[in-house]
C-alpha cells in the first residue's frame, strides 16, 4: 500500500467545469476546515473541520421521514427543529430523506478517489485547465501537499486557493498557481474580522514567493471594513515586493453568504451594508494597477 492510499482528505464538494478558479476549465475540490472565521465568509459550511449535517430548507417537503432518527435530532413540535448537538452524523436521515434536503457535508476521500474524480474532466483541461483546491482552507489538512504531488505526477495543472495562514513552501514545487487571499493588511482589523492574525499570512506569502511560487492575490473588499486608502496602498506595495506575483483580483463582498449560512443553522451574516460601492472598487483597482 503506498502512502497515497492511506491519506484521506475531508472533501465537502467536488465541482466540475469551474471557470473562474484559475485558468481554463477546472475541477474545484472544496476541502473542509479553515482556521479563520471571516465575517463575510461565503462558504461557511466549509469552516469546521468536522462533518456537519446540512439542511436545505427549500427542498424539504415535510414528509417527516427524518423523525425516525434514533437520537431525536429532528423534531416537529414547532416547525422542523434540528438539534445538531445530538447528531452523531450516522447518515441515516440523509439516506432516507426523499428530496435530498439533508446532506452530511464532509466526506473522507483517499487521494486515489479524489484523483479518479477529477480525472473525469481530463479531456477538457487541455494546456491550461486543471484542478483547483479550495475550501475551507486546503492547507488546514495535512494530506494536501501529497495530493498536489500526486496531481502533478498525473500531469494535471494545479492551483490552490489559500487564506495564507500556513507555511506552504513544501507545496510550492507541486503548485502551478497560488490564489492567495489578502483579506486585510491592518493587523487589528484582521484579527477582529477573521479571528486570526495577519502577520503569518504575509510571512507565509513571502516565504512562498521566495521558494518560487507563482502567486495571484485575491483581495476581498468589504465596505467599511477594508475600504481605506492605506489598505489599498499596502496591497499595492505588497505586489511590488513580491517577485512572482502575476496579478491581483478584487472580490467585492456580496450578501450571498447569508443564504448558505442557514444550511448549518448558523446566523445569517448577509449584511448589505458591507457591499462596497463602485467607487471603492474602482479606486482599489486603480491603486493596484500601478
Amino acid at each position, binding site marked *: 500500500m503506498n502512502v497515497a492510499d492511506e491519506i484521506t482528505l475531508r472533501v465537502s464538494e467536488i465541482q466540475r*467545469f469551474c471557470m473562474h478558479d484559475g485558468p481554463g476549465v477546472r475541477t474545484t475540490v472544496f476541502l473542509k476546515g479553515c482556521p479563520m472565521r471571516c465575517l463575510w465568509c461565503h462558504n461557511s459550511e466549509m469552516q469546521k473541520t468536522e462533518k456537519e449535517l446540512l439542511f436545505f430548507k427549500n427542498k424539504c*417537503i415535510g414528509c417527516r421521514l427524518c423523525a425516525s432518527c434514533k437520537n431525536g435530532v429532528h423534531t416537529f413540535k414547532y416547525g422542523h427543529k434540528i438539534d445538531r448537538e445530538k447528531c452523531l452524523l450516522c447518515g441515516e436521515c440523509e439516506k432516507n430523506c426523499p428530496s435530498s434536503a439533508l446532506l452530511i457535508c464532509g466526506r473522507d476521500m483517499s487521494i486515489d478517489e479524489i484523483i479518479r474524480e477529477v480525472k473525469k*474532466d481530463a479531456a477538457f483541461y487541455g494546456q491550461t485547465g486543471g484542478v483547483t483546491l479550495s475550501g475551507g482552507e486546503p492547507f488546514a489538512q495535512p494530506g494536501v501537499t501529497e495530493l498536489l504531488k500526486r496531481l502533478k505526477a498525473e500531469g494535471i495543472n494545479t492551483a490552490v486557493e489559500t487564506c495564507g495562514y500556513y507555511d506552504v513552501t513544501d507545496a510550492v514545487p507541486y503548485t502551478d498557481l497560488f490564489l492567495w487571499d489578502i483579506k486585510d493588511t491592518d493587523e487589528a482589523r484582521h484579527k477582529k474580522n477573521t479571528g486570526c492574525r495577519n502577520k503569518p499570512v504575509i510571512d507565509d506569502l513571502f516565504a512562498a514567493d521566495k521558494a518560487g511560487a507563482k502567486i495571484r492575490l485575491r483581495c476581498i473588499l468589504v465596505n467599511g471594513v477594508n475600504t481605506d486608502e492605506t489598505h489599498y496602498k499596502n496591497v499595492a506595495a505588497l505586489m511590488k515586493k513580491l517577485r512572482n506575483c502575476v496579478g491581483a483580483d478584487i472580490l467585492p463582498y456580496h*450578501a*450571498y453568504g447569508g*443564504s448558505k449560512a442557514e444550511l448549518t443553522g448558523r446566523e445569517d451574516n448577509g449584511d448589505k451594508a458591507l457591499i462596497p460601492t463602485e467607487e471603492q472598487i474602482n479606486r482599489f483597482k486603480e491603486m493596484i494597477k500601478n
Partner: protein
Amino acid sequence: MGFASVNGIERPVRLCEKTRAYAEESLGHKYGLDAKKTPCVSLDGITGFESFSPVQKYDAAIRAIAENAPLRICDGELISGAATLGAAISHVVPAFYNGAAVYMSNSHLTADFFSIVKDGIDSIRKKAEQAYRKYKGTDKEEFAKSCINCLNSFDIWHKRYLKELYNIGYTANYENLLTVPYKPAKTFYQAVQSVWFAFAFMRLCGNWPGIGRLDLLLGPYLQNDLQNGVITLDFAREILAHFFIKGCEWICGDCGSGDAQHYQNLVISGVDENGCDVTNEVTYLILDIIEELGISDFPTTVRLNKNSGEKLIKRVAEVMRFGGGTLAVYNEDKVIESMTKYGYELTEARRFANDGCWEVQVPGKTNFSYVPYDFLQLLQKKTLKSYDESVFFDSFDTMYNAYLSDIRGLLEGLLSDVKTNLMKCEDGGEWVWKPNIPCTVISLFEGGCVEKGRSYLEGGPVYNVISPHIGGLADTVNSLYAIKKLVFDDKKIGFSDFMRVLRENWDNDEALRQYALNKYVYYGNDEDEPDLLCARFLSDFADICKELDNRSGYRFPGGVSTFGRQLEWSHQRLACPYGRKSGEVLAANASPTPGSDKEGATAIIKSYCKNPLVKLPVGAALDVKLLPSSVKGEEGLDALCSLLRGFVLLGGFFMQPDVADAEILRKAQKNPGEYQNLSVRVSGWNARFVTLNKEWQDMVIEQNECCR
C-alpha cells in the same frame, strides 16, 4: 449603432458605416416587410392553365415569377439579386392561381453551388439539352423539357437585372452579372455574386436551399485575387457582408416561433475530399461578419477535428461568446467515420454539409427528409398503455424488449408508408418512384437529377434519404431507468402500484416522486449506469433503422432531434417515472432532461459522447447552455476553447453551445427546477444560479441585462 450581444463586450467594428447601416435595415425587417407587400405573382390570366399538366403548370409559374417578380436593388449593394415575393417565406412557390398557391416548395437540402460557380449555368443548360435529346419520346421527356423551360425563365430574370443595373449605373454589379452565373467565375467578387444570384433565384421560386461549404468554394478565388493584388481583404469582407445582409431579406419580425432562418446553412472549415484542411481567409471573414453583425440567419457550423488549429478554435470561441447560438460545431472525425461505416465513399463523406439545420448529408446530391417521432409518447401510450391497470412486466428486460418491438413496428409502418405513397414496385421487383409534385428549379442544382431525367422528389439525386428521428431521448431513457431502479432493482414499489402512481400524475405519492427525482442520477451527469442505458437504447434503435435501410430505394439512417417540438409535446405527455409531472418541460434533442443535469456542461458532453454516435450518420444534436459570465475574459475564452477541444477529443458529433442571456436567467428564476445546471461562478465561491437568493439572482440578471 450596435448589434446585440449577451456578454457585455462590444462587437468589433470592421465594416464600413454604410454596410453596417445596410445590415441594420435588413435585420430591422425592412426587406422582409417589403416582400410581404408583393406576396406572389398571379397565374390567373394564363389561358388554358386548368388544362395544363402538373409540370406545365409549374413551368408557367416559374416563368411568371421570372417575368413579374419585383426587382430589388438596394442603395449601394455590392451584389445583386433578391427574393422579393413574400409567399416564399411560407415555403410555397409564390405563384397563385385563384388566390391560392399551386405548389409547395423544397427545403432540407444543400444545393450544388460548386457546379454553378466553377462550371457556370451554361454547363447545366448543356446537360439539360443532352437529357432532352436522350429522353425525347420517353416518360422523362417532360421533366427534361421542364429543365430547359426553367433555365429559360432564369434567363429572363437575369436579363431584367442586367438591364436595370445598367440603367442605374451599377457598373460593377452589371459587369459581374455579364459573366456569372452563366460562365465560370474568375474572381472572388464574381464567385460571391454567382452563389448569391443562383441562391436568390431558388429562393425567389419559394425554395429554402442551404449553401454549404462557402469557404471551401470561395477561398481559392480570394487567395488568387489577393496574390494578384486585385482585391483587399477589407473589400472582400464588405462583399461577403453584403451576401450575409441580403440573406436577411426574409426577416419580417412576425415569426411566432422565433424561427428567423430558412435553412440557409453554412458549413466552414474542415477537410476537403482529399483530407486536406480547407480553412482559409474566407473562413475567418465569415467569422468576422457573424461576430460584428450578430447575424444568426445563416446557421453556421464549424467542422472541427483533432488537428484543428489553435487560431481557428480561438476565433470560433470568441464569436460564440457573443451568444445567440450563431455558431455550432461538428466533430468531423466522428461524422466522417459514421458516414463511411454507413456506406458512403470516404471522399463523399469528407464533402459533407447539412440540410440547413445540422442533419448531415452529401451536399448537392441528396434528397433528404426526416420523420420526427416522440418516443416518450410511444413508451407511455403504447408500451405502458397509458399506465393502465392491465399493463404488467415482470422484469426490466421484458419491458425493454416490448418497447423495442413497438419501435420496430413504428418504423416498419414508416417504411410501408414510403412504399405505398412514394414508390411503386415494378414487375421485376424493382422499386421506382411514383410521380410527385414538380420541383424542377431545385432539381437543376442537385447532382443526378438532370442526367437521370428525374426530379428531386422522384429519385433524381444520387442519394435519397429518409431519416427517422428519435425525439424525447433523455426523457425516454430516464423513464426506463427510473422504472428499472425503483421497481426492479431497489424494489421501492411494485410494478402495478407504480403504474397507478403515474396514472394519478404523482398526486398521491410526493415522497416517492422526490425520491425518484433526487436519489437517482440520470442521463447527462457522466454517470455510467444511466448513460450506458442510453447508449444501449440508441444502438438498438440504429440497428432497427439499419434493417429497414435500402428496402425501398431510400436510405434510413437514424438521428436524434426534437427541434423545439418538446415544448408542444410537454402538454400532451403523461407523468414520467423519473418524477416529472404531466405538463412539465421535456428534453431537447440529445440533451439531458432539464433539471436532471446537475454536474454542468462537461458532464453533459461526456454523457453524450458515450452514445454510439458512429451508428447515427445523420447526427444527434447536443445543446449546451452557458452563462456569459462563465465564458468571460481571457479565462472564459480559454475555457470555451477547452470545451470545444474536449468535445472533439471525446468523439462528439454535433454541439451547439449557447451563451444564455438575462431572459433565460429570468426564466430560471421563475422555474428553478428546469435550470439547475446554470452555474454562476465567481472567484472563491461557487453557486448554482437557482440556489442563489433572489437578490443575488437579480443582480446576476442585471449584470446580464447591461449587455443587451
